[in-house]
């Protein structure tokens, strides 16, 4: 079982949350090329290692948050809510 720490509700079974995949910066649909848009839609880094991803706590606080997870070991870092710049992760929200 994977225990994912929701920033509001604390550790929850991953099965209670909704997994929304890799975090990506969405290109501006008004100015980006079709290639850029499709790259955003379909292409994924899918690394065997640390990955920043989106989760949704639908059965708890109903907030979306981001967390870095190691895809091989299941290790997790501090979660971050949109707009926050805290936690052990570097850089701003994508």
């Amino acid at each position, binding site marked *: *079982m994977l225990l994912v720490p929701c920033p509001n509700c604390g550790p929850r079974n991953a*099965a209670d949350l909704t*997994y929304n995949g890799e975090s990506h910066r969405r290109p501006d649909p008004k100015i980006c090329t079709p290639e850029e848009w499709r*790259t955003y839609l*379909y*292409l994924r880094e*899918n690394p*065997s290692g640390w990955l920043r*991803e989106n989760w949704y706590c639908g059965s708890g606080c109903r907030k979306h948050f981001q967390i870095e997870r190691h895809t*091989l070991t299941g290790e997790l870092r501090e979660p971050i809510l949109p707009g926050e710049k805290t936690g052990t992760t570097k850089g701003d929200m994508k």
Partner: protein
Amino acid sequence: MGILSGSKKKPPAKYSAVGLAWRGLRKQSWPRIWREPEFRNTYDVIIIGGGVHGLATAYYLAANHGITNVAVVDKQYLGSGGSGRNTAIVRSNYLTPEGVAFYDRSLELYNSMSSDLNLNVMFSERGHLTLAHTDSALRTMNWRAEVNKLQGIDSAVIDPAEIKKLTPSLDVSAETRYPILGALYHPPGGTIRHDAVVWGYARGADAYGVDLYQKTEVLDILVEGGSGPEGKGPGGTVKGVRTNRGDMHAPIVVNCTAGWASHLSNMAGVTLPITTHPLQAAVTEPVKTFLPTVVVSGSLHVYVSQTDRGELVFGASVDPVATYNMGGTLEFTEELAGHVLELMPGISKMRLLRQWAGLCDMTPDYSPVMGPTPVDGFYVDVGWGTYGFKAGPVSGEQMAACVANRATPDLIKPFELRRFTEGALVGEKGAAAVGH
């Protein structure tokens, strides 16, 4: 054909009943069925991944195109990935015409495989039932049956009474939570011994002189002249691979891995439309034969078949969270048991022997990614999701043609990587086995 030349055609040594008796009586041991090659560093083609797809590609490169200066490298033993972890079901009753044509060719190759490779792959053409529990599922079954018939595939929708006749252990009554309304019946579908398929292709390829390297991990892919960092990425040309045993050079590198497809393609600077999810399966203790068909239920996310030894093999849909970790979960066994008992209440006393997981590379349109990439000489045969095993032979045949002729054959043209940048996806969603 330039660099790709030199044929030393040699069929594998024959296995036969006479040979078996002869060796048995004289108490002779059997020789290894493939060589342990000395490390060499120059090849015409390097294939990464020693599973059904990689070995079939190597075999057909040698058998159909006379290209034998080929290396297959695997970081573990041959067939240690998806090829040895799947539930060994084969079928061709897909939804899209592209899918049907492709998987039907695969079934054809599986049918004649035992004699082609001179190794018994224990193909059991027992019939395949896809159950419908809702009106919309039944509608899709009818649609699939019509697409199949149009392509000449034996496939039809049958009612609960006929299902009961074929498979008496199924509960087809109307009192269940998800009553069975009908099923798509596909008589040519069945099961096959997956390890034997791997060994057959390995033995065949080895006899033609292909070098099979086990415990040889690819650490990097050598690319020059690309637009990305270190000369990798689009526009570059592949030069070979760096392994834990040294560098290997070749003008063509084929990525035939499952689970590690993104990891390896990233090494060449090619980003794929793939996320990797584990899929869990389980097997029960052996009992007397009672389940004559393969039973699949999309709504209940489960598929069941009985092996020749009498064990029931269960598979489910992929786990929702992308991970490379192949550990089992209790959620899976709980859900599986509930769903299987819904279908077959009679097996409630059976015990599970073990559960395991394999890695599935899921693409957005539930279709594979095959053919050339923006890096010259770097080919992929990846993104096989939960349906890679049943497509192994045809993928090998088509990838071999693709590499040998440096042109994508028509059968796999719809599956090229560029469909994602051109927006021409192949929607096989409704027809993949379960849970998509």
